[in-house]
């Protein structure tokens, strides 16, 4: 074959690969939609697996609690410390509590919680369900007349959707404690005075937006982790891919959702 012919073959191959990739993308988009629809179809129809939902809530909370406590506190502390010099230039250190509260309550608390949960909870759900898939435990549930989707997926997604907003609220609180530590060490501000300044700039919309954001993030982390694990294949390699895919996809989607929700909140402000 001459060079031109080689090039044509290569381009054709590349084109067909590209076509395949585009096709694969739309197929997986369709599959994820079906997965989400199935969740809504099954999650709110009896019998409810309340005990398992509670167990999963506990698992999600306990798994992330320590890391979230430490990270939330450090984020609050560092953010306050780093913001101080800029405000000092204008003699506006007294605005620090307000600045910290806006940053933490509006953006940092839900986002930091979601990112940590993506890593801790998302990967764990992906790996757990992935390993259950490759060891045929999900098939075993199916052939014994039970509903594995309801028991494994619905419970986990509900658990992350319920627990992550609670964790985000907690992250906000420990973040403020971190901020307070810095402010109190430098200005000697009392806790009461600090908290008064914290709540002053916040509107009801901020709390609602933050809550909605955390619910969306929680749902995303749960559904992505479950989708990756529930549909994993190819043995142990598939389990690794499911765990990894759960983290990467959830983190990516969390950022996209953050941008969209921030834009939407702007319309109500």
């Amino acid at each position, binding site marked *: 074959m001459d060079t031109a012919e080689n090039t044509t073959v290569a381009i054709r191959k590349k084109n067909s690969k590209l076509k395949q990739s585009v096709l694969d993308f739309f197929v997986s988009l369709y599959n994820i939609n079906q997965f989400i629809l199935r969740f809504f179809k099954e999650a709110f129809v009896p*019998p409810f697996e309340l005990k398992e939902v509670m167990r999963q809530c506990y698992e999600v909370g306990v798994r992330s609690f320590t890391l979230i406590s430490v990270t939330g506190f450090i984020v609050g502390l560092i953010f306050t410390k780093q913001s101080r010099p800029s405000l000092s230039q204008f003699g506006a250190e007294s605005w620090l509590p307000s600045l910290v509260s806006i940053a933490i309550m509006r953006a940092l608390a839900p986002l930091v919680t979601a990112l940590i949960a993506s890593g801790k909870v998302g990967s764990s759900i992906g790996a757990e369900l992935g390993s*259950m898939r490759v*060891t*045929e*435990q999900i*098939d*075993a*549930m*199916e*052939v*014994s*007349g*039970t*509903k594995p989707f309801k028991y494994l997926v619905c419970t986990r997604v509900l658990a992350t959707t319920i627990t992550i907003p609670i964790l985000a609220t907690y992250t906000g609180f420990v973040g403020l404690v971190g901020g307070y530590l810095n402010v109190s060490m430098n200005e000697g501000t009392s806790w009461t005075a600090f908290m008064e300044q914290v709540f002053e700039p916040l509107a009801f919309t901020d709390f609602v937006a933050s809550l909605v954001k955390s619910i969306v993030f929680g749902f995303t982390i749960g559904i992505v982790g479950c989708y990756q694990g529930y549909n994993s294949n190819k043995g142990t390699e598939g389990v690794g891919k499911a765990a990894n895919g759960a983290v990467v996809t959830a983190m990516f989607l969390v950022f996209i959702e953050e941008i969209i929700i921030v834009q939407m909140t702007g319309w109500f402000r």
Partner: protein
Amino acid sequence: MEKAKVKVDHTNPVISIRGLEKSFEDYAVLRGIDLDLYQGENLVVLGRSGTGKSVLIKIISGLLRPDKGEITVLGKNIAHITDRELQELRIRIGFSFQNSALYDSMTVRKNLEFPLVRNRKGITRKEIDTNVETVLDAVGLSQTINQMPSELSGGQRKRIGIARTLILNPEIMLYDEPTAGLDPITCIEINDLINEVQQRFNTSSIIITHDLTCAKQTGDRIAMLLEGQFQRTGTFDEVFDTNDSRVKPFFDYNFIK
């Protein structure tokens, strides 16, 4: 232990398959399977690895969809039933997986209770305990009730896997490679258990294996799956009384004659 004579009702097929075909991408695994499993019978499906034996029972249990063919299980055509009907049908079929597929986050007790609690509405605690004790006793592993699957040996896991399917009193048992990966003594114990299940619980079974000892000890009838079709069917001696070059090596490489 010698297999006891079992009364098979040849007028009443519990599973009836006609013209079953199944392909994976371009590879045709099953190419027109016809099969009847009769009430009370142990049917062994023999064949080399990758010939579609497990695919066959996964189609029967509704885990895989056939490309073509009619599959009637306990009077229901599984291609034309609703999800709810399939779920009800599955309760009447026990599926013992090759690797046992025990739920590794649950104890043996929880493994056994799981299908029972979800399929028998209104069952009392006492009834659950009685059922669990009965099936554990049937497989001879009452002492493992509070153990985790990771603490069990391969043979014990197989037995608990069988116990978990028995707890719903299935009419049909599907065994996927019941003796794979086990030592010869444990294999014989599992074969005896399969025969005991047939007699005690009056089940009809399909046993997927490439272990001829298992086939000989448990099978009332053998079906040899070759090139996507059943090439030879009959008793163990009938199937292997041949000079067919595709069947003979299978027999010669095993150590029973």
